[in-house]
């Protein structure tokens, strides 16, 4: 009787699940299953035990058949509902069923710094002959807990991500692999220390250099929250999961230009889910994940034990594969390497092989090189590059020759020169010390003999005359470039006029001489990016590169080609990123500028590629690197996961550059939010903001929508960001040049040519 009740209960759950994930669709199938279930429940009291069991078996078969049939009709939005369903597997189910033993660390259940982030030390037991080997791993992932309220749906707060990072570093010390599980709809968008964006950036930066294998499994990969633990050597994805730059509801709100939490129509949400190309196979086709792990029809649930076995096998294989590729000699490499696995090893069972998962120091270095290479190649070619093959080859030759010249100039000759210089300096200091010792008694004797030396007379004029106006040899009241806003005859009101009594300013004065700064309260009005380009750097020193690279529409998003074309015509730019070399007081630097005027400064593949090329150029030429963020609204949603992958991709480049001894400066202007701030911008150790800038992770509307909190008007102010420790200083726009020069002199690593 208990068995019958249990089975009936489970069938009811399956029916509820089907109803929930199809949300009113597939009515016929649902009705049929419901009628059969109700018929059975009506007759159950009249049936014998044997009849009940056989009827239940028939019902189970019917359910399985219908689930298989419905599985083929799943839309991307249905998959979103699958991963958000309380019956969906969660990380605890995986810990119970995939690993042989585990201990939860860093908190337990609701008694944790963030119950949305679960961390455990676990091990997998493998056999070699009769011997058993326990292979330890660090398991880190978001926990949804089958709808437990305190888990916050796997939406992790900044301190949860900080905890994850802490244990990744522990894994690095202990030389054990990290398995991460992405079960998040997105990060909890608050700025309280350490701040959502800044902590994700920190996680990405550290993971870019984490010297142990990292394997990630994606179930629900919601944008920045996913990236916080998703930068991995092998990225597996569950077949019914999604991995996207934004939730379909969020994309629909943007597409439908909805405001104040207005709900988008279900059709629009469904269409956006389709266009975002966020399913496992979409991501596999775009090369953004390495492998899909098949789930049972309509998604895995906690009782699908075969699924857990296959996930365990794939995890072991993936970890083996990463470890073996870092070794210079490995017999098993061919057997485990997924895309090249020979037919004969198709049924390779990872349980029966043992590969040590600890890495030697050399293997650790190789691991990082391979990880860098992997992310460098992601989303390759998903931009428009009109250069001919000849031009591309020429540019490669130029890059190689620059490499060679710099190798000679800075490494071979430069290093020797420095060493000789140091030796000469030391000899000179020694000689001076010796001469000082010899001659000091003689000079003091002479001084006593001759008497005190007469002081030079200070000219009377110097003390009595009025000081004269010193010619300013830098920028003074006249700027080299005057904004077009200064050509309009109108008055402008300062937004702080009510508070500080600022008088109206005449636009030609404000945008001309005053550089867009209120003379009373110091409020900075937004200026175009050209003002920065032509007033900050030495005149005529700007040399743009990679201007041919154009933003494209890699997902063929409806109507986006026209919008892109419009942006290109309006701004005269081909993408939202301008990369150039320029000088400040003759010190050359590499600059990547995100222009707010091009699609809100959003970052897509073209922008990511240009940014990355600028990093590589700076590294190659031993130049400091400046990211000037004229404004960015985040990752370009119309490019889907291709856009979001720019977060780890560019952060990886930044990490390599900083490790090589460069100086990476970030200057924020106007408004900067979301993905770029939560990755390759936010990871800089030297971040500054121009006064009146706003920066953070999510805007007011998103915070209200996701957390239900109202935020004060100054929540994203630069001053607030400074007091939270997210940036290191606030600059006046008129002082950017001087401050940048000061930064070049005082900050940065060992690899800069001018140091």
């Amino acid at each position: 009787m208990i068995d019958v009740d249990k089975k009936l209960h489970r069938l009811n759950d399956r029916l509820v699940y089907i109803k929930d994930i199809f949300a009113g669709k597939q009515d016929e199938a649902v009705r049929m299953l419901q009628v059969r279930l109700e018929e059975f429940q009506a007759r159950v009291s009249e049936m014998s035990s044997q009849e009940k069991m056989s009827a239940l078996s028939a019902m189970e078969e019917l359910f399985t058949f219908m689930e298989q049939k419905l599985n083929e009709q799943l839309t991307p939005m249905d998959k979103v509902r699958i991963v958000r369903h309380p019956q969906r597997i969660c990380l605890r189910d995986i810990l119970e069923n995939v690993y042989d033993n585990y201990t939860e660390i860093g908190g337990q259940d609701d008694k944790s710094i963030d119950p949305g982030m679960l961390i455990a030390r676990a091990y997998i037991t493998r056999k070699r002959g009769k011997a058993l080997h326990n292979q330890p791993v660090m398991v880190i992932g978001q926990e949804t807990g089958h709808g437990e309220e305190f888990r916050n749906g796997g939406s992790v707060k900044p301190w949860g991500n900080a905890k994850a990072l802490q244990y990744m570093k522990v894994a690095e010390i202990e030389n054990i692999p990290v398995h991460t599980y992405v079960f998040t709809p997105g990060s909890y968008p608050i700025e309280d220390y350490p701040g959502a964006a800044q902590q994700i950036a920190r996680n990405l930066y550290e993971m870019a250099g984490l010297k142990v294998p990292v394997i990630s499994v994606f179930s629900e990969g919601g944008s920045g929250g996913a990236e916080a633990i998703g930068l991995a050597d092998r990225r597996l994805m569950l077949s019914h999961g999604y991995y996207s730059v934004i939730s379909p509801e969020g994309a629909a709100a943007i597409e439908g230009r909805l405001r104040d939490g207005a709900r988008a129509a279900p059709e629009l949400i469904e269409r956006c889910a389709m266009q975002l190309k966020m399913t496992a196979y979409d991501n596999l086709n775009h090369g953004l994940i390495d492998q899909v792990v098949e789930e049972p029809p309509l998604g895995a649930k906690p009782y699908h034990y075969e699924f857990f076995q296959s996930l365990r096998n794939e995890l072991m294989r993936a970890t083996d594969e990463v470890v073996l590729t870092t070794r210079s000699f490995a017999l098993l490499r061919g057997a485990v390497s997924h895309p090249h696995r020979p037919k004969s090893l198709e049924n390779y069972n990872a349980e029966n092989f043992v590969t040590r998962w600890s890495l030697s120091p050399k293997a650790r270095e190789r691991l990082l090189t391979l990880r860098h290479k992997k992310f460098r190649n992601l989303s390759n070619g998903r931009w428009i590059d009109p250069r001919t093959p000849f031009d591309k080859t020429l540019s490669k030759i130029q890059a190689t020759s620059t490499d060679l010249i710099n190798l000679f100039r800075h490494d071979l000759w430069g290093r020797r020169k420095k060493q000789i210089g140091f030796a000469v300096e030391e000899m000179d200091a020694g000689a001076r010390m010796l001469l000082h010792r010899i001659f000091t008694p003689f000079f003091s004797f002479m001084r006593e003999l001759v008497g005190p030396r007469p002081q030079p007379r200070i000219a009377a004029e110097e003390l009595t005359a009025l000081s004269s106006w010193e010619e300013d040899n830098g920028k003074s009241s006249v700027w080299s470039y005057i904004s077009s806003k200064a050509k309009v005859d109108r008055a402008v009101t300062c937004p702080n006029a009510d508070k500080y009594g600022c008088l109206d300013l005449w636009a030609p004065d404000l945008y001309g001489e005053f550089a867009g700064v209120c003379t009373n309260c110091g409020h900075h009005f937004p200026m175009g990016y050209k003002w920065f380009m032509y007033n900050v750097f030495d005149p005529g020193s700007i040399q743009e590169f990679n201007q041919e690279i154009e933003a494209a529409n890699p997902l063929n998003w409806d109507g986006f080609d026209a919008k892109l074309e419009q942006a290109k015509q309006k701004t005269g730019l081909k993408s939202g990123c301008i990369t150039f070399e320029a000088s400040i007081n003759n010190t050359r630097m590499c600059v990547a500028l995100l222009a707010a005027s091009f699609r809100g400064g959003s970052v897509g593949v073209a922008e990511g590629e240009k940014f990355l090329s600028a990093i590589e150029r700076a590294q190659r030429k031993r130049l400091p690197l400046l990211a000037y963020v004229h404004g960015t609204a985040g990752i370009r949603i119309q490019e889907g996961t291709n856009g979001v992958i720019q977060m780890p991709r560019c952060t990886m480049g930044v990490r390599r550059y900083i490790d090589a001894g460069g100086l990476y400066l970030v200057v924020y202007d106007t408004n900067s939010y979301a993905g770029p701030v939560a990755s390759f911008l936010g990871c800089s150790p030297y971040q500054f903001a121009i006064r009146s800038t706003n920066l953070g992770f999510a805007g007011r509307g998103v915070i209200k929508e996701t957390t239900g909190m109202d935020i004060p008007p100054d929540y994203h102010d630069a001053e607030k960001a400074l007091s939270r420790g997210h940036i290191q200083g606030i600059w006046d726009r008129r002082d950017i040049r001087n401050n940048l020069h000061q930064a070049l002199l005082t900050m940065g690593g060992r690899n800069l040519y001018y140091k």
Partner: protein
Amino acid sequence: MLDISKLLEEIKQTPFDEVEIISPWCGRVSCADINEDDPVSGPCGSWLEIPGTLLASVEREHNPKPVRAPEKGRIKLIRKELEGQFIEAGTPLVTLKHFLTKQEVIQIILRQALHLFNAPERAKYYFVPEVDMKIRTAGHRSVRVNDGMDLFIMSRMKREVTLPYSGPEGLIYSVYFSHNENVGAGDPLIGVCPEELMPIVEDVVARVQAEWEEQD
């Protein structure tokens, strides 16, 4: 003696304030799409970050500047005849009928009934120990004050001086400062009510709390 019941009746007769909104600048007027008797809202939100309803804009030197409702209420009069005209600063544009809230009615009554004793300079204020003891045991409404009585200790920059009360005799009805917090010069410290008025004031305030119906 002040007749508080009469005062309350008077307020009930005209339970609103009329707010005249004038143009703060000279310029050319364009009225917003509002009419007489339309409801308008003042600045709202937890930090008053949502501005009031737009009533008109006055454009000067190609700079249209908004004129917004400072209070919640209804439009009593809107001078649409000024549409498109150049006006001087100080010209009335809109008259609002702002219906009084409970708090505002209580404030009006208390303003009439109480004598406010203000802080002479920015400092921290404490009651003298005897008064403080009495307040702790029997509440501030049990403290009788009279002119010249040493009532406060004014503490500023490690300097502590006694501050005597000056004003009519009565009981302390309300205390407007809290322990260890600075009070600005001119801000009220206490409100003193003549003893005979005390029960009437308490009764009227309770009635306002219970009976006053706030209107949109």
